[in-house]
């Protein structure tokens, strides 16, 4: 009798164990490597929080049913060699999708993504990521699209003759890439003069540069760098009384900047000098106080983020970067496909038409195809008004489309 009871108990345990396994759902492993500390961590840190929170939200709210996403987040301190090591360890771990961060490491690992056939969404929106690459999917408009869109906005709104523009850029591939595309746009017919391209250093005083630009008749300075040098420059411009009070004010400088040159951090650094600064970004800002931003703030509150992270456009960037693979997984499951890198890659390439993905983090829909690996094509133009960025226009760069078509 005792023996029979033992056998029955063992059989029951085995049954329930198998049953539990069958209903536990799948775990899909993803990896993110980014600058949570180190240079550019002012962007990378809130971005990583956005990624973390979105995946928690997916699991907590069972967006994938019983399946779960397990995303390992590692700090690479903006060092490409560390990023590469992280990526290799994620591969050994069996990831189905990879999230990368910097321009340098995305360019550096581009061939690895191809060899491993690993769909990758980077935080870098460098146009060069797309060259000779099929596995990289950029979430939003590229840096070049941001800069050319600003140039187009200047041309469209400038009064009287050809606008004279200076480009103020980061001394790196990240800064130089968009300059080349802006020059190509001018060569293709964009009616403006690029008077000068200034690569900044660690300047404590930009008086000489600003006076020089003024002496050459420059009216617009388009920036493509990070916030700190822009903040120093616009503070100097305010001191020298050369900042335009309205767009294109004659004899003054109107400052405009692409993606990483703006946001709440610029206002934190530049204070009043940021007033009337124009900025392009594909993310919805919480200062817009719309339904989208309320969702972002709710997510941040759910996971205990402070106001600074919750209101950061980099937090929104992290959310979108995590939403893209989530959506690909949802599409693969709906199509009855196994969730693996090959199928997720296939799903991303089909994310168009009726299958576009609308995110609360972005200002436009995310769409990809085999020939288009840029997600959100629209950028909003924001302007600092009484200490906050407010949207004044939306734009899709016509010239970048023309350049790409060539």
């Amino acid at each position, binding site marked *: 009798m005792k023996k029979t009871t033992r056998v029955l108990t063992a059989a029951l345990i085995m049954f329930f164990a198998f049953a539990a396994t069958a209903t536990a759902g799948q775990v899909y492993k993803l990896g993110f490597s980014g600058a949570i500390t180190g240079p550019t961590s002012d962007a990378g840190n809130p971005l990583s929080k956005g990624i973390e929170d979105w995946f928690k939200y997916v699991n907590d709210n069972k967006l994938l049913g019983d399946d779960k996403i397990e995303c390992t987040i590692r700090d690479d301190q903006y060092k490409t060699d560390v990023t590469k090591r992280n990526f290799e360890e994620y591969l050994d771990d069996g990831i189905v999708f990879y999230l990368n961060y910097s321009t340098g490491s995305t360019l550096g690992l581009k061939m690895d993504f191809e060899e491993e056939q690993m769909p990758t969404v980077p935080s870098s929106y460098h146009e060069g990521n797309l060259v000779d690459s099929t596995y990289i999917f950029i979430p939003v408009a590229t840096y070049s699209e941001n800069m050319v869109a600003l140039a187009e906005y200047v041309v469209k709104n400038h009064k009287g003759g050809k606008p004279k523009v200076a480009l103020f850029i980061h001394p790196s591939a990240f800064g130089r890439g968009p300059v080349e595309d802006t020059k190509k746009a001018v060569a293709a017919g964009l009616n403006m003069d690029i008077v000068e391209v200034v*690569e900044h250093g660690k300047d404590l005083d930009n008086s000489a540069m600003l006076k*020089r630009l003024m002496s050459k008749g420059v009216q617009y300075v388009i920036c493509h760098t990070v916030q*700190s040098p822009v903040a*120093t420059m616009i503070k100097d411009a305010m*001191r020298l*009384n050369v900042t335009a009070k309205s767009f294109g004010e004659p004899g003054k400088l109107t400052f405009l900047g692409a993606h990483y040159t703006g946001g709440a951090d610029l206002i934190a650094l530049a204070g009043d000098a940021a007033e009337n600064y124009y900025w392009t970004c594909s993310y919805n800002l919480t200062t817009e106080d719309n339904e989208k931003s309320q969702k972002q703030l709710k997510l941040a509150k759910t996971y205990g983020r402070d106001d600074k992270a919750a209101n950061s456009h980099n937090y929104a960037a992290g959310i979108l970067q995590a939403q893209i693979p989530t959506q690909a997984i949802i599409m693969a499951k709906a199509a009855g496909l196994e969730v693996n890198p090959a199928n997720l890659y296939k799903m991303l390439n089909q994310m168009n038409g009726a299958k576009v993905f609308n995110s609360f983090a972005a200002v436009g829909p995310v769409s990809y195809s085999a020939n288009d690996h840029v997600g959100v094509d629209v950028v909003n133009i924001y302007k600092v008004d009484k200490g906050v960025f407010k949207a004044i226009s939306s734009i899709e760069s016509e010239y970048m489309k023309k350049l790409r078509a060539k």
Partner: protein
Amino acid sequence: MTYFFQIVVSGIVVGSIYALAALGLVLVYKSSRVANFAHGQIIAAGAFITFFLTVDLGVPIFFSFLASMAITFFLAMSVERIFLRRLIGEPIISVIMVTIGLASIIDGLIYLTPFGTENFSFPPFLPDTPLTLAGVSISWTQLVGVIITFILIGGFSWFFKKSTVGISMRAVSDDQFGSMSVGISVPRVFGLAWATAGLSAAAAGCIIGNITGLNFDTLHAFGIVVFPVVILGGLDSILGAVVAGIIMGLIQQFAAGYLDGNWGLNGTGDVAPYVILLIILLFKPHGLFGIHEIERV
């Protein structure tokens, strides 16, 4: 001419701040012959301590500034006591390697705080309107920065020339064993050199932070940016640091004002100081005010 004078004023402002930031490196080198690669981190720490005291604890900024200088004084002294004192008499390269390690440790510690990854600015405490004379303008931040720089540099110069401790520090710098034989406490002098370097670093951090905003990456980079100033000045000369700082500031501004954007040149404002540094070192290998030591064999 307004353009020219604006560049001169900007060059002097930038150069003075370079000199103040370089001062900490000079003080440590002067007493211990060590190039401190953690200097930038101490500059950043000074700026963030002031910010924390002012914004988070509500201490008036003037007192925060003084408190921050006092804190970094003791912080740098502790660093010397804990990490460097036991290396007295060891090869200089070992000590330099320790300062590189220290830089990483302080980096890591600051990254654990919100100050490592976010941007801040000091609450405005000086008038917004710049001072303008004949079209040449200078902001209050810059003016106050220059005044503080010259007060501190004047104070340190007096200290080294006239005070007993300062003279002891110079003696240690010249000959450690000789100084010990006449009863000077070399470890105490080292500690004091680090402490005063910390004090000047905090002042530099606050001034730079007021100009550029508070970003850890930007602030700690100044520890390296001012190395050419120290080398040009002659490594262990306070006067050298001041003269070299102003030369560097002026060259940078003149290059940015007159060379950049012309004849296809760009970024000369950053490169020109190094070119001039190399040229001067060809003729004066010990820098402008460096001492050429003669050894009898």
